[in-house]
């Protein structure tokens, strides 16, 4: 799931300074699960913004909506009838959702209320942690199901580096378990340490972030 975190209130207020009539748009998708951009967050953010602006003596009118998903065209359509009446849309969907709103409504100012952070999991209530960097060529079958790209701070393919601490933490931060320590422990318990013994060759990053926007085209599904 895609994770995000609301931008600081001061930053959002700064972006909204020129406007006094906006749409605040949440999303029922991923950002609802990570409690950053769902209906509830729309409500809280709207209240906070209104209070702040009232205290400044420049009230802000906010239309609160939460769309099924901001990354699918059909769910964006319902905004069309009323968008004209507002000066800007503040979206608290992920970066993809925010962009899709901007793309769909070309004459509307669209502002990000959320910092999109990573693809991750809910480790426990209130704690979300990154797991995948969408490298486009998954190697989890070689590394015991633990990702070297996302979970080693240096994305090493033949770790661990010399910085692993005695309690198995990454040199970068005590909060980060060393990804390679985990890979090795996992391979050992799976009796697959021979996977580690072989050097993994230089990875092709062609499938990763570096070639402009990536795409998946499925002829069988296209109309």
């Amino acid at each position: 799931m895609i994770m995000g975190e609301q931008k600081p209130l001061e930053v959002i207020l700064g972006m909204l300074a020129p406007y006094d009539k906006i749409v605040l748009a949440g999303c029922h998708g991923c950002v609802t699960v990570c409690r950053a951009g769902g209906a509830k967050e729309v409500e809280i953010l709207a209240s906070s913004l209104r209070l702040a602006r009232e205290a400044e003596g420049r009230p802000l009118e906010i239309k609160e909506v939460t769309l099924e998903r901001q990354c699918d065209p059909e769910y964006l359509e319902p905004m069309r009838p009323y968008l004209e009446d507002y000066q800007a849309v503040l979206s608290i969907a992920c970066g993809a959702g925010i962009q899709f709103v901007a793309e769909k409504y070309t004459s509307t100012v669209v502002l990000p209320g959320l910092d999109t952070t990573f693809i991750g999991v809910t480790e426990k209530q209130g704690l979300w942690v990154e797991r995948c960097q969408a490298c486009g060529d998954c190697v989890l079958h070689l590394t015991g199901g633990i990702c070297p790209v996302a979970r080693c701070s240096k994305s090493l393919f033949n770790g661990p580096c010399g910085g692993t601490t005695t309690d198995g933490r990454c040199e970068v931060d005590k909060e980060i378990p060393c990804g390679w320590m985990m890979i090795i422990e996992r391979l050992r318990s799976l009796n697959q340490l021979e996977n580690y013994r072989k050097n993994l060759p230089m990875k092709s990053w062609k499938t990763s972030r570096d070639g402009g926007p990536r795409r998946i085209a499925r002829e069988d599904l296209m109309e």
Partner: protein
Amino acid sequence: MKTASRLERVFDEGHFAVTTECGPPRGSDPEVIRKKGELLRGSVDAINVTDNQTSVVRMASIASCAILKEMGLEPIVQMVTRDRNRISLQSDILGAAGLGLNAILCLSGDHQTFGDDPDAKNVFDIDSIQLIELVKMMRDEGKFPSGKEIQGPPNLFIGAACNPFAEPFEIRPIRLAKKVDAGVQFIQTQCIYNLDRFEKFMDEVRKLGLHEQVKILAGVTPLKSAGMAKFMKKNVAGMDIPDDVIQRMADTPKEEQAAKGIEICVESIERLRKVEGVAGAHIMAIEWEKMVPVIAEKAGLLPRPDISVPSD
């Protein structure tokens, strides 16, 4: 194929090798590196120059090495994969060889969060093991990874680092074996203070027969004070300083602690020298380069063999 590296010759002739390292200046004044080079002349076989160690910006390792080379010294260029993608690495490997450098140390590098520019974007296109493979391919096959031929392959003696003290311990000899597979020819270890554990590590290394395939230089660093020992133990990841070493330093009056540190360092070298499979010592005296000749002298490592490397 043999390189023109003096270090390789020293090994070939069966000597116990001595290397050291120095950090380039945080500025563009070549005198700083020349002074360090002069201090080290005659007491070591080769000198590593660090590559933006701990992610703190310094003069380029290649440039500093070229300055040492000009002085008739034998530098080892360190190269980290943190800051360069494979295009830049290939180009710098050619550049190093072009400047007449004969040896390279392949590293992944400390993470950028340790340095002055934690906001930098890191690269890590490849890792240290893949860098060893890259240099070896360019040298021995005369080819780039793209398959294209190299006009004048870089003839570099290939080294890497190894930390026998970082977790998971049991994997460290195996990781060394991976580096040997990749084609590494010499290894410089992390500073050794826990000799018992290092000896255990070497037992494993010998069981795997690695000591016959790669020259291992045992790393040592003289402690300047008890405070430094405590600081390193606490703050440097993968650094193992046993309590009795710290105690020995702490039991020494402050003014004599530096001398005690040198004494411990010399003792360590003497003991490490006897460990089967240890082919040399790598003396790292960070910003204390003037002590390297003293340590080499006291440990009976002088004079260094007089090797006339054919100029290429």
